[in-house]
């Protein structure tokens, strides 16, 4: 169905690097980055544009985005569109545009996004906080590589935006906690303005306000103390450029907490107009600089971070990395997502060995059935996670544990995944046994058609994988899968007998056949010369 079309090239020339564009619509600015991806995956930024917008001001004070603001966005996007066209970036698969908290939280979000699409043909997607988490994590991978401090011990990664703050906890290099807080520098600035605090009290009000939110936040994060804090925001980069003027962009800069705090304290009291004049930064950046640095400072203090590490990275870097990865997740993210599923599994005392075996078999089947299911490679990760978590419902009760699994998953956060992805995982887990999807299954009906089909396909695979693991063996068996003429064959190597598995498969009904149109045949391949087939 989907053909992999390389960017059109005149014949006879060396294939050019791929050019793509990402747009990030934030609370106070819209930003465009056009980048070129070399054959080796090297990213080279060609253009960086930014324009101030009032989205955050609108949403955080009135709850909706004003018409004038939308028109302003349309104008800016049209300009972006022109610059993209200059670089031949015109195809939807070359462009990814996302909007964060200011649009996400606006009451009129859908109509705003429709208006943008209608007048610019750019499909802007309002992403969730958890996705921001994922993008932040992916964005800083390059900068963090080889950073030993983060491989051992604990560290937090914070991205303080205009409307939300993403916080990730890293333990021994693994993401053990991720959350998106409704704490943002512009939000704070707006709150401050509604207080109408007198100038000499501004600082005190600011401190008080930030301390209160940071305190709430501290109780959510399951650690008391970290070694280091990674600060991923434009404001932090600005502070770093002042504190460490020789900072080379490809390096992570490490700032002493003391110097950072002094600078934050100093800048927080400088009036916005003076910041603009003195440091030649755009007005919208000057507005949020003080609050953002103070939040950073407070976070570093409450978690007793010894140093603040600042990478030159942003949401846009994460977006670009994901586009480079194409229709798959980046490897770094997949590892962390699986890690977070395992963490969730542990919380509900899952049979880790069994879960991992099933996950591995499911993934193998997913790949073997590519031609049949025609799903994006991304679904492999969702299937893997569903397989890992399919039995966590046992923690509640083993009666109808598949339903409990679904509820537990639906009400959990999995690192970096959208609600929609999580629903897909939950339903896949739910259908690993018993009833197949039915019209009166509420959660199933809530999905869109594509997702319903995906769930059916994934659950069908999961059932087979689970059946193959019926014996809960200590070692994973070698199984190979192949599509034969009228059947799908799972050949289990080095076994004598598959009676139990066949029984299990039968017990799980013929969902596979219903979905894929062919039955599954279990074939035992005995050691060495194995060719014979059971009837």
């Amino acid at each position: 169905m989907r053909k992999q079309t390389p960017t059109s090239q005149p014949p006879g020339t060396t294939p050019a690097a791929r050019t793509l564009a990402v747009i990030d619509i934030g609370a106070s600015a819209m930003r465009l980055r056009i980048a070129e991806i070399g054959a080796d995956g090297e990213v080279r930024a060609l253009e960086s544009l930014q324009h101030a917008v009032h989205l955050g001001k609108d949403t955080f004070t009135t709850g909706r985005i004003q018409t004038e603001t939308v028109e302003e966005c349309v104008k800016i996007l049209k300009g972006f569109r022109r610059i993209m066209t200059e670089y031949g970036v015109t195809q939807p698969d070359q462009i990814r545009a996302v909007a964060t908290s200011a649009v996400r939280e606006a009451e009129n979000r859908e109509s705003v996004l429709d208006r943008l699409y209608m007048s610019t043909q750019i499909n802007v997607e309002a992403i969730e906080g958890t996705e921001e988490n994922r993008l932040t994590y992916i964005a800083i991978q390059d900068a963090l590589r080889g950073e030993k401090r983060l491989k051992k011990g604990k560290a937090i990664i914070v991205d303080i935006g205009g409307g939300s703050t993403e916080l990730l906890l890293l333990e021994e290099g693994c993401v053990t906690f991720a959350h998106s807080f409704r704490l943002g520098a512009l939000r704070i600035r707006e709150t401050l303005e509604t207080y109408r605090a007198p100038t000499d009290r501004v600082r005190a009000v600011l401190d008080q306000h930030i301390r209160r939110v940071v305190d709430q936040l501290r109780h959510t994060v399951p650690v008391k103390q970290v070694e280091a804090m990674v600060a991923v925001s434009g404001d932090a980069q600005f502070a770093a450029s002042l504190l460490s003027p020789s900072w080379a962009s490809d390096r992570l800069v490490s700032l002493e907490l003391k110097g950072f705090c002094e600078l934050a304290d100093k800048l927080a009291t400088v009036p916005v107009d003076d910041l603009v004049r003195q440091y030649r930064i755009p007005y919208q950046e000057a507005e949020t600089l003080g609050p953002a640095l103070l939040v950073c400072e407070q976070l570093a203090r409450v978690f007793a971070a010894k140093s603040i590490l600042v990478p030159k990275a942003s949401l846009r870097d994460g977006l670009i990395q994901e586009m480079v990865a194409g229709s798959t997740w980046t490897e770094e993210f997949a590892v962390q997502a699986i890690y977070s599923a395992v963490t969730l599994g542990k919380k509900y005392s899952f049979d880790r060995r069994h879960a991992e075996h099933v996950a591995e078999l499911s993934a193998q089947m997913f790949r073997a059935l590519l031609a049949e299911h025609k799903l994006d490679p991304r679904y492999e990760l969702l299937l893997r996670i569903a397989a890992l978590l399919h039995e966590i419902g046992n923690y509640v009760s083993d009666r109808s544990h598949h339903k409990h699994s679904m509820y537990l998953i639906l009400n959990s956060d999995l690192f970096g995944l959208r609600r929609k992805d999580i629903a897909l995982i939950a339903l896949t887990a739910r259908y690993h046994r018993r009833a197949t999807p039915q019209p009166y299954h509420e959660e199933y009906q809530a999905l869109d058609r594509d997702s319903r089909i995906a769930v059916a396909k994934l659950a069908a695979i999961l059932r087979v994988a689970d059946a193959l693991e019926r014996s809960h063996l200590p070692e994973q068996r070698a199984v190979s899968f192949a599509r034969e003429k009228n059947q799908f064959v799972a050949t289990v190597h080095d076994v004598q007998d598959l009676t139990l598995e066949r029984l299990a498969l039968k017990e799980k009904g013929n969902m596979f056949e219903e979905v894929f149109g062919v039955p599954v045949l279990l074939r035992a391949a005995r050691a060495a010369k194995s060719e014979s087939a059971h009837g």
Partner: protein
Amino acid sequence: MAKPRKEPLFFNRELSWLEFNRRVLEEAMDPTVPLLERVKFLSISSSNLDEFFMVRVGGLQQLLDEGKTRFDPSGLSTVRQLSIIRRRTHQMVADQYGCLLHELEVLLAEAEIRRLHVQNLRPQQREYVEQLFEGDIYPVLAPIAIESSATFPLLRGLALNLAVRLKPAQDSPRKQRYAVVAVPRQFARLIPVPATEGFQYVLIEDVIGAFVEKLFPGEPVAEWVPFRITRNADMSVREDQANDLLAQMREVLQARRHSACVRLEVSDTATYLMLKFLKGALQVREESVSRVPGPIDLSAYAALPRMVAYEELKDQPWSPQPSPQVTPNDSMFDVIARKDVLLVHPYESFEPVVRLINQAADDPDVLAIKQILYRTSENSPIVAALARAAGKGKHVTAVVELKARFDEARNIEWAKELELAGVQVIYGLKWLKTHAKVCIIVRREPGDVRRYCHFGTGNYNEITATLYSDIGLMTCNEDFGVDATAFFNSITGYSQPIAYRKLEAAPLGLRAKLLDLIESEIQRRKQGQKALIMAKINSLVDPQIIQTLYKASQAGVKIQLNVRGICSLRPGVRGLSENISVVSIVDRFLEHARVLYFHHGGESLVFISSADWMPRNLDRRVELLVPVEDRDHQQRLIAMLNLCFEDTAKVRTLMPDGGYVRAPSSGQGKPVRFQEAMYRLGREAAQRAQTDRYTVFEPQRPASAAS
């Protein structure tokens, strides 16, 4: 330390400008300059003065009329400035005519080039002129009779007219009356007449005057005199109210045609009656009247050297040489990809710049061209290339500065043409004039997208590039490409300005960067290091920059400035500026390049720039400061800056009292002449490159074999 000083810290900018124009006039008076070049300098000094009256005197006069008198940094009030200006310009005009009538015309006559009066023509010459009048001129004349001063016609500024006083016919009861005849602009001012030897010409106003009675049958002409007026042109679009800049700009052009008269030039043959009439009708004050003892508007003499063949009376041509860095007929993309190219015009040809844009227009891999156009030539090949590129589907963006003074009308014209061709045209920025000169070409190459940039100190005008000294830098360096596109995105409004890697731009960071660079020399000097600043600019007026330069001088930083025009800095004053020396060169080519050098502890920072050091350039214009990083290029520019100070022929040194003096002639050996030396260097380099090419055998392969 700061004890009160009698002398002000700054020179007044208007008076400094008048000093500059005097230096131009001195070239006309210099017997060592070829005769027809002297005529050219005289005409330049005249057209310079016209612009000065329109813009500067006009502006001051307007301030005064609006009752807004103020003091300039040198402590002069508006009234006082105007009165000094009037005095000095009267003297300057007297000197101009002294030079023309008593020196140049005498020498021209010796060379058989003569201006004749119609009454002195020989019969067949007179017949020729009369035929010309009857056949060509008379039909387009439109005399306007003046019944009262209320019916006085709207006169075009700077255009020549005849005022005619008519006696009533013998038996008529009417009073004497006046008429105005505009001299038609479609005819040359200097009209050659058949001559047996040499070159002889008459002036068109003389021809019309001689036959003027034919326009007023029955009314005897009592007198006729040529005159012209200069209008205040210091007005601009109220951009806060301008929704449509193009339309508003047209209105300004319209308004300029009605604006106040700041100068009335009239032949000194005019009678008291005639003068009284003109002053009254034009509402001109006595001090604004200039009675001239010869032809009005000497800028017309610019045509004379072109009309006559006498090569021995002209400069030896110094034609632009091909740059040794640029191989003929090669792709400019290949040339630039090999190494950055630095062009020093007019010693080196502007052709590579035109070639680059032409090749970009025709290259199938070029995606986009972005260019700023401030002033350009008529029938500009660059404008044509941009239109062609747009026609071929490339994304072409042109920032056309409509506000380029006196070029507005022409700019509006071709801006429209470009738009029709499919170019995205942007009329500069609100409030700011876009003065930076940059061209960016985005090209898809095997493997990646590359940006080729040209940065210049002069306009994209291949004609003036043979007359003005300017620097151009071509590069495909990534950092410059990123900066140039970011700069462009900020002008076109697609993005807010973002921090640059290499460039600095006015009005945002350029001033601060200059101050930083000067401060850094001060700090280094204080720590005992050598500190040196050299700069070549056109004007130095900005008080903050000057104050910082004073501070640097006081710290012991050596500062050598080559300021062609206005310089408000007072050099060589003990305790203030004794380490600063200022020179100015007025020679064959207009010194126009802005080149800066900072010693920076031996690291040598060299920049080229579009900006002069004036408040308007640093605060109200979009300008660029571009570092020159290639060591060879740096050395070339440093050598050039040093060479200015070695000039003993055309250089004048600014004195602490504001006067300029020539270098004392050393008496021994040939004097050093900067522009000549630059030309020689350029030619030698071109010749060397040519011989090198002859000694390297390069087989010519058919095009299909080329990779």
